[in-house]
């Protein structure tokens, strides 16, 4: 018989959020006490499985690398099923089936079945435009737990949404699929990447997510890596627009309490402190690319001196625990000043390694998103300047697109997958 009476908070909450621009893992699975400074390697809780880089959409803020992996390098069905089994054995709890567009894989059913059999909580992160109702129903039968659909704008601004995604009819199709998700009794999250071409619609986007029956909506300000960095001048909102959006989110969160959960991802150009990217390098999230490379974060390949292991060559657990790339920036030992002695070092881990590398040439430096970085002022000014200039044309996300000239500002025809 228990002796303690019920008091206070009995349920602590952690987020394992992955969206187009950022991943957060605020969970601290096994510690209820203070963080362990020596950083004992813990089991990851989330697996981001990028099943393919193929995608019918061409969003200019895509978080995939500029060099997209080709279809003939993709892992086989058996490879992915093995990854799922190894993930569960390693202690991973949730798998985020992402891409590119995961439904472009014809074997998604088999991958989900295996993941569900292993006890993994399965989350499909989809652009939805390839889905048919009977396939969605099949995925549910295979054990799919949750669906996250990305939108580019509200349905009454479908033309703008389709221009951003580079896919005609996409907005209407997403609305239809969202309806099926709810009809099938599955939980729905709407993910809305926010930038200067839709930031004026943040309130309407939240209402649209409610109308679609979503239990969660992510107001996900674009994070400027990969394609988004390439398109930064076209996407960066002004600080004023961002502040307005932030106020709307706060107000709506209160108004819609118990109706929809609103998660917001802040653009770090306008933040005082950097975000704890990945909730700490090699701490809670593991990322497998379409060809089987195992990364601590989906942008990690931009750090050119890191070597990544492949699930074809080495067990997942071994890579997580002993892999060079994972140990390089795990914990706090690798830090330089001002991070090393910073009281926030266990809170934000010095921000994003990829951003530090891209902008300072050394991934162990403080992320310039931090106000304590010597480069912060110069870096923050870029956002201010670019956001007040006219928007250049998008560089659409497509194979080889990063080296091409910007596409004209009209909706391109859908590309085949």
């Amino acid at each position, binding site marked *: 018989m228990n002796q303690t009476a019920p*008091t206070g908070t009995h*349920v*602590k*909450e952690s987020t394992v959020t992955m969206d187009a621009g950022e991943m957060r893992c605020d969970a601290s699975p096994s510690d209820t006490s203070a963080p362990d400074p020596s950083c004992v390697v813990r089991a990851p*809780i989330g697996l981001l499985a990028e099943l393919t880089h193929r995608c019918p959409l061409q969003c200019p803020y895509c978080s995939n690398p500029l060099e997209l992996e080709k279809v003939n390098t993709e892992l086989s069905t058996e490879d992915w099923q093995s990854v799922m089994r190894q993930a569960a054995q390693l202690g991973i709890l949730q798998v985020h089936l992402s891409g590119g567009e995961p439904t472009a894989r014809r074997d998604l059913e088999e991958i989900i079945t295996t993941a569900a059999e292993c006890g993994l909580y399965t989350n499909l992160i989809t652009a939805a435009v390839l889905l048919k109702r009977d396939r969605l129903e099949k995925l549910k039968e295979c054990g799919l737990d949750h669906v996250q659909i990305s939108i580019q704008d509200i349905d009454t601004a479908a033309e703008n949404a389709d221009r951003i995604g580079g896919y005609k009819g996409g907005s209407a199709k997403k609305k239809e699929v969202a309806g099926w998700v709810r009809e099938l009794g599955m939980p729905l999250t709407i993910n809305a990447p926010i930038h200067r071409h839709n930031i004026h619609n943040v309130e309407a986007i939240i*209402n649209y997510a*409610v109308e679609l*029956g979503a239990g969660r909506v992510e107001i996900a300000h674009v994070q400027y890596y990969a394609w988004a960095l390439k398109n930064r001048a076209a996407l960066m909102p002004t600080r004023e627009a961002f502040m307005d959006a932030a106020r709307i989110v706060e107000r709506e969160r209160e108004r819609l309490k*118990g109706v929809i959960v609103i998660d917001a991802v802040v653009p770090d150009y306008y933040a005082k402190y950097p975000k704890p990217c990945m909730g700490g390098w090699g701490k809670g999230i593991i990322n497998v690319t379409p060809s089987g490379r195992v990364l601590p974060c989906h942008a990690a390949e931009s750090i050119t001196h890191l070597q990544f292991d492949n699930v074809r060559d080495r067990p997942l657990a071994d890579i997580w625990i002993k892999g060079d790339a994972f140990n390089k920036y795990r914990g706090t030992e690798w830090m330089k000043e001002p991070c090393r002695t910073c009281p926030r070092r266990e809170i934000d881990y010095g921000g994003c390694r990829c951003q530090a590398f891209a902008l300072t040439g050394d991934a162990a430096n403080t992320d310039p998103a931090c106000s304590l970085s010597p480069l912060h002022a110069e870096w923050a000014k870029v956002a201010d300047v670019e956001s007040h200039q006219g928007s250049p044309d998008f560089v659409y996300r497509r194979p080889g697109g990063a080296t091409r000239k910007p596409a004209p500002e009209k909706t391109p025809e859908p590309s085949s997958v």
Partner: protein
Amino acid sequence: MGETPLRQRAIITVASKPVMPPYIKLRHDAGRNRWLILAPERLFDPDEIAVEILKLCDGERSVGEIVEVLAKEYNAPREEIEADIIAMMQDLADKGVVKA
């Protein structure tokens, strides 16, 4: 746009009959030796009492009946237990972990 929400916030009272929807999973994690609630892109970390309460939430028992069960088991004033459970359930309902 700007329509009023189609759904209403569920307010938890002693008459509410909370239940976890099928896509919310209360699971024992042997590796970490603890109970977990798996939810869409969320993890919840329930303590022993929360686990006990959630196991009683079958959509048929009312909050009042759950309070009765716990009042017998714990040596604490009924009102205290009731206030505690309602607060916990309201929080979980707001986060979509239970429906009522």
